[in-house]
């Protein structure tokens, strides 16, 4: 038995992981979510702003991270839309604008009362990462003369009086890497004191927590925090709880529990095999 376990093909582990994720997805398993204080910091940063506040949402991710980050990006959009905030969308990644379009689709289908140019608008992608951030903290039109539809910012009601992003009440950054939250902290939040919150991938999350609370007003780390954020919105705005599209992150926590349990079990089993093998002189 020990020899079989020692030489087990790694693909059996992959197959068991596939089943551990697939079965809860098919069974639509959803577990209760407890909202952490860190998530409430992000929620309150948006909730406490008065209606009509200006919020810059930078989607710095691409389809490779869509499964992890899109649920929280959509939750940000829904929260800002419910609160009636002015939403300014941009992207520092070339494949970011299609992600922004998904949020704009959400606004158009779920909040038809919001008007493009008055309640929300979109800037095009610009290359340069931190250089773009640095520029728009001083002069927005130096980088974005037009919106994504080719209309001059001076003709758009919600941008005509904006000089630079220091006029924003909050920056929301959804980040999958570089450029992302680190650059927003380095070139906007720290030097100019613009209140910033971040939703980032799990890989980045441990590097972002030290920025709380001085440089970041809150961080949503990975899909778990996105599920908590959805739950926080559901609690305050119960009408949104009946929208299945607004429960995406919560749905993805079911497979997490089963897959993590499997992984913990495999780590324990692997250690047992290692120690038993060493004791028998086989390792």
């Amino acid at each position, binding site marked *: 038995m020990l020899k079989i376990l020692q030489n087990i093909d790694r693909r059996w582990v992959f197959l068991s992981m596939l089943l551990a994720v697939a079965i809860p997805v098919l069974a639509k398993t959803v577990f209760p979510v407890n909202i952490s204080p860190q998530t409430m910091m992000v929620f309150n940063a948006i909730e406490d702003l008065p209606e009509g506040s200006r919020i810059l949402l930078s989607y710095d991710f691409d389809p490779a991270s869509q499964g992890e980050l899109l649920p929280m990006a959509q939750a940000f959009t829904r929260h800002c839309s419910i609160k009636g905030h002015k939403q300014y969308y941009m992207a520092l990644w070339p*494949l970011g604008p299609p992600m922004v379009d998904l949020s704009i689709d959400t606004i158009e289908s779920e909040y038809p009362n919001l008007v493009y140019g008055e309640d929300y608008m979109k800037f095009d992608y610009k290359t340069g990462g931190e250089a773009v951030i640095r520029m728009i903290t001083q002069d927005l039109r130096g980088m974005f003369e037009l919106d994504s539809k080719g209309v001059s910012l001076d003709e758009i009601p919600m941008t005509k009086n904006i000089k630079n992003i220091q006029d924003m009440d909050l920056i929301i950054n959804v980040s999958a890497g570089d450029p992302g939250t680190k650059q927003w902290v380095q070139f906007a939040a720290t030097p100019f004191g613009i209140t910033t919150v971040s939703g980032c991938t799990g890989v980045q999350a441990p590097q972002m927590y030290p920025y709380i609370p001085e440089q970041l007003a809150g961080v949503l780390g990975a*899909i778990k925090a996105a599920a908590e954020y959805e739950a926080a919105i559901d609690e305050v705005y119960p009408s949104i709880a009946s929208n299945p599209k607004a429960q995406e992150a919560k749905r993805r926590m079911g497979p997490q529990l089963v897959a993590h349990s499997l992984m913990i079990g495999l780590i324990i089993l692997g250690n047992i095999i290692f120690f038993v093998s060493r004791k028998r002189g086989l390792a």
Partner: protein
Amino acid sequence: MDKSSEASKNSNTLIWGIIFIIGAIMLVWSMSTSRTGQVWVTPEQHAFTADADGKYSATDTPSSGDIEWVTYNVVPDSELTQEVIDSGSVTLSWSRTIGLWLAAIFTLFILSFLVGDNPAYKFAEALVVGTSAGYVMVIGIWDVFVPLLLGKLAPGFVQTAFLPGMDVSAGTQFLYIIPAILIIMLLFQLMPSGGWISRWPIAFFIGITAGYRMIGYVEADLVAQIKAGIVPLWVTGENGFAFWASFNAVLLTVATLSAMIYFFFSVEHKGFIGKTARIGIWFLMITFGASFGYTVMGRIALLAARLEFLFGDWLHFIPSS
């Protein structure tokens, strides 16, 4: 063939067999119970009419000279009944259906790498890389090169040909000749000789980036983080001594100092320094463990998203995402 490679081959065949059998059962089941991989749409008419000032506004009764177009909205499974199809208000979108099948097949091609490297995976990988590179290049030309360089050097032409909304009041901005020259110099990298010319713009770019980043790191990661690390160890609140806040402050201080001492190699790690450095290792290990846990969570979320796509949008076992 030795025993281990024979066992691996048998295991390989068995795993492929299991995956194919499960996949075939799911596909047959789905096709017999739903409209597998079909995308149905409803047309939506848009029309805009111009007023006397030339400003456009939406209209429900378009006439000749108005701007009109049609968009197609996907009909959710829950609303797609036989009666709806028979009524003729929805149509099968062949382009979206083919796109859906391609997305599903390429997802399976990529996932097949877990069983072993194979031509299907290589094909999908090459296609992703090629498509991404082409997309990024087109985006770069239209969102950056045209408005931010060509639009500064030939504003009238760009406004007439590409961007009617562009403000041309500033006229030609000759300063932008410098980045244009740097771009041309960079292209010398592709020439058989004269490659050295491209080193100048590369040096310029590296210098600018290094300078930019240094400022950012010094301000946000060095000075601000040192400031954030200096906290009162004895924390009091409205009810006097706050135990957990004080505990957190002490933990933060001990973890920061011990982890830094681990990376301080000017003194030999023995005695008090050695023990402190060892505590630092523990904190580093806990941090790496947290990172690993978060990474696993991220990867599983990505897998769950793809399976939701396969089981929902494609096979219709669960509601579409």
